[in-house]
């Protein structure tokens, strides 16, 4: 692969849960430094796509390939191990934060670098403190997650993912569990990451936010990509009727 190839290419991803076909042949490409927003009604499969990219779900078929590897072809006899190798390149920020409640903020962040990546504790702590300061949580390093607000917990969740220095950051509805007044502080952090050219895929219902930070919007419905393109085009002037209806519904809920 050449350096101009996309950082990530997903081809013909398929996934069913029982009789429910959640993904029907999804194609997705993400260039380095690009922010891709995945939008669509609930049940459209956008979260499942994200989880497949991180090896949290094993697709029934299709391929997920990172530039420089790994490249995993699913279906047939793909072992769990190969799916897991995808995690070396990406890290997930969860809707419900999923911080480790028995660890302090700092311990949450250095767990991956120290236990998995075998970095020295000293370096990991320094890096964690630097990242915490960036999101305005330096003072919280020794607190336990349950002492933090939702917005603070999610910022720690983002730092935990950043500390792994992944090539691709995945956000699964990062603000959906937050009280409305806390959404802004999390979106601000994500926007700053976009300005720093982190490569990100974000599942979100915040269309205004998607329009502001995304380089590309992918609209999904019923397990397929209905349309994708520049945010202004997809969200302001959709080509497809389904996209138009979805955008209208979110803009005018009543």
């Amino acid at each position, binding site marked *: 692969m050449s350096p101009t190839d996309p950082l990530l290419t997903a081809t013909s991803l398929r996934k069913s849960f029982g009789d429910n076909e959640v993904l029907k042949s999804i194609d997705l490409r993400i260039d380095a430094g690009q922010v891709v927003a995945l939008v669509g009604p609930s049940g459209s499969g956008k979260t499942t796509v994200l989880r497949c990219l*991180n*090896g*949290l779900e094993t697709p029934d078929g299709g391929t997920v390939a990172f530039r420089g590897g790994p490249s995993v072809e699913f279906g047939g006899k793909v072992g769990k191990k190969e799916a*897991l190798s995808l*995690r*070396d390149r990406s*890290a*997930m920020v*969860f809707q*419900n934060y*999923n*911080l*480790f*409640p*028995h660890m302090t903020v700092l311990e949450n962040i250095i*767990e*991956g670098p120290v*236990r*998995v*990546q075998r970095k020295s504790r000293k370096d990991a702590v320094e890096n964690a403190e630097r990242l915490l300061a960036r999101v305005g949580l330096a003072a919280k390093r020794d607190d*336990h997650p*349950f002492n933090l607000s939702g917005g603070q917990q999610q910022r720690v969740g983002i730092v*935990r*993912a950043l500390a*792994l220095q992944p090539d691709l950051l995945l956000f699964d509805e990062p603000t959906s569990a937050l009280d409305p007044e806390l959404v802004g502080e999390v979106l601000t952090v994500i926007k700053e990451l976009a300005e720093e050219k982190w490569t990100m895929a974000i599942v979100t219902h915040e269309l205004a936010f998607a329009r502001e930070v995304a380089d590309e919007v992918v609209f999904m419905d019923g397990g397929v990509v209905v349309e994708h393109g520049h945010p202004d085009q997809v969200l302001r002037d959709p080509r497809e009727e389904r996209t138009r209806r979805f955008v209208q519904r979110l803009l005018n809920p009543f």
Partner: protein
Amino acid sequence: MDWELLRTSFWPMVSGAVTGTIPLSIVSFLFGLALALVVALMRISGQPVLSGIARFYVSVIRGTPLLVQLFVIFYGLPSIGLTIDPWPSAIIAFSLNVAGYAAEILRSAILSVPKGQWEAGHTIGMSRTVTLRRVILPQAARVSVPPLSNTFISLVKDTSLASVILVTELFREAQQIAAFSQQFMLVYLEAAAIYWVICLVLSSGQSALEKRLDRYVAH
């Protein structure tokens, strides 16, 4: 009231507790807990054979009296050529018994940890085993402290059954003193009082431990 008998019988019984009841309880509990973890993990492994064996084990242990289990090991095994001394027999029986109950406690504690915690471990690159050890078990441990404490307190009382396979512990001391003095009521009530005090101490230890662990429980 025979104060003199109360006094002279007190120290042999306390010594029976210190050299018999308490070490027997602690050693059996630790072995039992280790085995329980193995059984619990087999049970939730998702592999039909392993989880079938675990289910069978738990069913047999919980479905048969502890006294019968003790007799099978101490009096039964010699008839197939396997003779085990009283102490090891008691430790084996109590450990196997505790494991049957603790396995179910650990299983449900592990399952009570939200699925998102497994996923958070996986997304930072941890294998299943590392996630289990670093993320899941510490949280499961917190959930299982109250029921495991109850198991331990029951075990302390159950060790009195070891007297029937000739292990010298609190209750066997009491039986001997009672037989010798013919003061059954007094001696057995005294033994009961000592068990009660031990369990009171353990219960207060349990509440202290729970209070400590409560600080970091997931909401």
